[in-house]
């Protein structure tokens, strides 16, 4: 990780020290996996870490079927567990943590990820994202067990606006587009991707496809993309890890191997965003044209209350 000067203890807002914890969870063993997360925190003691990003379903495993109801947690409970784990190893150090988990919101269940700020004395859920697109085809069966989120938010952090997109959310180009239009400068993508496709060269085809998708989003909108991939086999389905960080020009700054629990460290220079957008101002162009596109009457969008009820 490149180093940088930090004067009088203040964080330089031009840079974010990011650690991606590529978890290999033991299926269903939440407490054990949380301890593993604590060990990752311990390993991050050296060097600067501002933001730690865990994958989707990082502390339970992804394919839970009906067991999702056994393991889903309320957001405050999960936030408390994460904060306690952090403080148990790192004391009163300040950090932001993003992690995917199965959420129980009063009996409605979501595939969620939270952005948590852990301060010296208290933790604060900065944002809670509920996965919009629940894959329910082929090997996937999310919508059988879970409800879907309703919107993608762009939320303010210590390092500027960010958005969370969970796995398939990032595959629909309109989601990173909306996040960027709403002001997100870093897209955080917790994911659990079962690898498949052996016809490619050097890596599974699904890994290549993911990278193309993430690079496209980064370049089109001039944003950083931080991808945290789950790893390990779940009942024969191997999660592809490959956690990575991509800069606003589409350069892959670092990429983890597919099937190893690891911590990816990368220093994001946020000034790259403005430089990239100066060279390729697609986001500015889109902001100017977007109203015309959305007002297109041929689009199947509700046009006010009357139209919705008339359908």
């Amino acid at each position, binding site marked *: *990780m*490149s180093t*940088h000067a930090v004067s009088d203890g203040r964080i330089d807002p031009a840079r974010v020290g990011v650690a991606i*914890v*590529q978890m290999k969870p033991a299926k269903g063993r939440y407490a054990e996996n949380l*301890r*593993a997360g604590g*060990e*990752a925190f311990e*390993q991050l003691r050296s060097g600067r870490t501002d933001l730690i990003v865990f994958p989707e379903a990082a502390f339970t495993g992804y394919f839970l079927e009906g067991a999702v109801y056994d393991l889903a947690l309320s957001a405050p409970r999960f936030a408390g567990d994460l904060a306690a784990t952090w403080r148990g190893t790192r004391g009163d150090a300040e950090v932001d943590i993003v992690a995917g988990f199965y959420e129980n919101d009063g009996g409605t269940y979501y595939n969620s990820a939270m952005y948590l700020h852990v301060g010296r004395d208290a933790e604060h859920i900065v944002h809670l994202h509920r996965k919009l697109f629940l894959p329910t085809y082929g090997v996937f069966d999310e919508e059988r067990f879970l409800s879907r989120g309703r919107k993608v938010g762009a939320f303010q952090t210590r390092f500027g606006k960010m958005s969370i997109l969970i796995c398939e959310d990032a595959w629909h180009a309109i989601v990173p587009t909306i996040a960027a239009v709403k002001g997100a400068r870093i897209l955080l993508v917790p994911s659990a991707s079962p690898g498949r496709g052996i016809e490619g060269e050097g890596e599974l085809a699904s890994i290549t496809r993911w990278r193309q998708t993430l690079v496209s989003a980064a370049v089109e909108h001039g944003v950083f993309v931080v991808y945290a991939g789950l790893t390990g086999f779940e009942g024969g389905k191997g999660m592809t890890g490959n956690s990575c*960080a991509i800069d606003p020009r589409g350069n892959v*700054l*670092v*990429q*983890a*191997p597919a099937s*190893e*629990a*690891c*911590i*990816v*460290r*990368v*220093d994001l*220079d946020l*000034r790259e965003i403005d*430089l990239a957008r*100066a*060279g390729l101002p697609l986001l500015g162009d889109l902001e100017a044209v977007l109203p015309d596109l959305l007002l297109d009457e041929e689009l199947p969008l509700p046009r006010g209350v009357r139209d919705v009820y008339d359908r």
Partner: protein
Amino acid sequence: MTFTIVEAPLESPRPPGIDCAVTADWLSAFLRDELTLRRNISRAVIGLSGGVDSAVTAFLCARALGAENVYTFRLPYATSSAASLADAQTVVDALGVHCRTIDITAAVDGYLQFEPDADARRRGNVMARTRMLVLFDQSAKLDALPVGTGNKTERMLGYFTWHADDTPPVNPLGDLFKTQVWALARYLGVPKVLVDKAPSADLEADQTDEGDLGITYARADALLAKLLLGYSDAQLVEHGFSPDEVSLVRGRVDATHWKRHLPTTAMLTNTAINEFYLRPVDY
């Protein structure tokens, strides 16, 4: 559980890369398009200095137009090194292109005899402009087009004679940094002696470009590549360049914007050429 640590690789200043096969094909297509299609000219005129830039240009023109359509000229002055002349000959031998040697000493001295106090810089500029005078005249004689050889590094640093090296109407190398030209030279099979030797304007004994510039091409190219993307001086230092290197390169770039433009013309009417009256170069 112990996690393996995967660190983002430390960025060390490196010159930009190049896909030589793609670039060579693209530049061959460019040369055919500019000469044959656009201008209906089948022949190219190139001044061979004995350096790598003009050698690569000759190799590209031979690929694009055929060696029989490439007319090279060695244009030594009395003080030019014999090695440069010999190195230029290796290009001619390798390609089988036409070559003629015209000594410019009499032409240059015909003027400089009246300017005995002219320093090395002025004398070098007179030689460069005399060489371009010869190449343009030869192009008229041969119904050919002069092809430029200047690279992006020297253009950005202003390390060239205005209205001499930059004069030909087409230039295949002008968007390639020097280190990329070297890579392209190796790919095209330019004789090794030209690729490996220290680049020099050959105006004085032991003169080298890098000595004149005060920075190596590898460092200058790496720095320029980032500077051109908009990096601030502070960011360039963060990326591994010394403040002196940044100052030197930024200073040269900022002091030479004018050399990368046509002459400044006073605008007086609402039909001023290239201000109001606008037509594409290939219109």
